[in-house]
């Protein structure tokens, strides 16, 4: 099915779309009528984040004394509401001695980074570039 015709969204609405796309993976694409992409992103990124937590990944603290920890925290935050949900549920403590600890961290961090990419993609679509 071809995507809906390109259109330009006013800047204020584009910002709201970006915020929605950040908060809920795929929401920006759903808002813009790209249903298949939106649903796929919602499933893929949420699954990736959840898998990362399940295999003992850690939600890093915002400690910029160690820049890599701070940057990892920013990347974790990129996944949006699932991050806060996981924090509220006490997930993402991370167990450094677990065999899968580093794999889990990678899943969680990359899920956040990919959601940031999805936000940029939603912005491009809202501006009629895609």
């Amino acid at each position, binding site marked *: 099915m071809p995507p809906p015709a390109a259109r330009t969204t006013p800047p204020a609405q584009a910002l709201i779309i970006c915020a929605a796309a950040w908060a809920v993976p795929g929401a920006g694409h759903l808002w813009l009528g790209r249903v298949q992409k939106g649903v*796929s992103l919602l499933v893929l990124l949420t699954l990736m984040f959840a*898998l990362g937590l399940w295999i003992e990944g850690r939600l890093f603290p915002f400690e910029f004394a160690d820049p890599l920890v701070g940057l990892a925290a920013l990347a974790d935050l990129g996944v949006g509401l699932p991050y806060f949900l996981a924090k509220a549920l006490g997930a993402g403590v991370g167990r450094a001695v677990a065999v899968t600890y580093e794999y889990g961290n990678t899943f969680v961090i990359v899920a956040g980074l990919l959601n940031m990419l*999805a936000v940029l993609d939603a912005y491009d679509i809202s501006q009629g570039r895609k």
Partner: protein
Amino acid sequence: MLVFAALVSATFAVLSRDAMRDQAWFAARLFGAFVGAAYVLGWLLYPLPL
């Protein structure tokens, strides 16, 4: 690693292609490239002492 490669490949495919058929083909190629690169790098690093 296979699960990670599959999820990342699928996400990139969804973001960079519009038609589902194109997405599936791109994801499959990217997945193959990820796994192939890991396999080749693994063998290249194999002789190095740890």
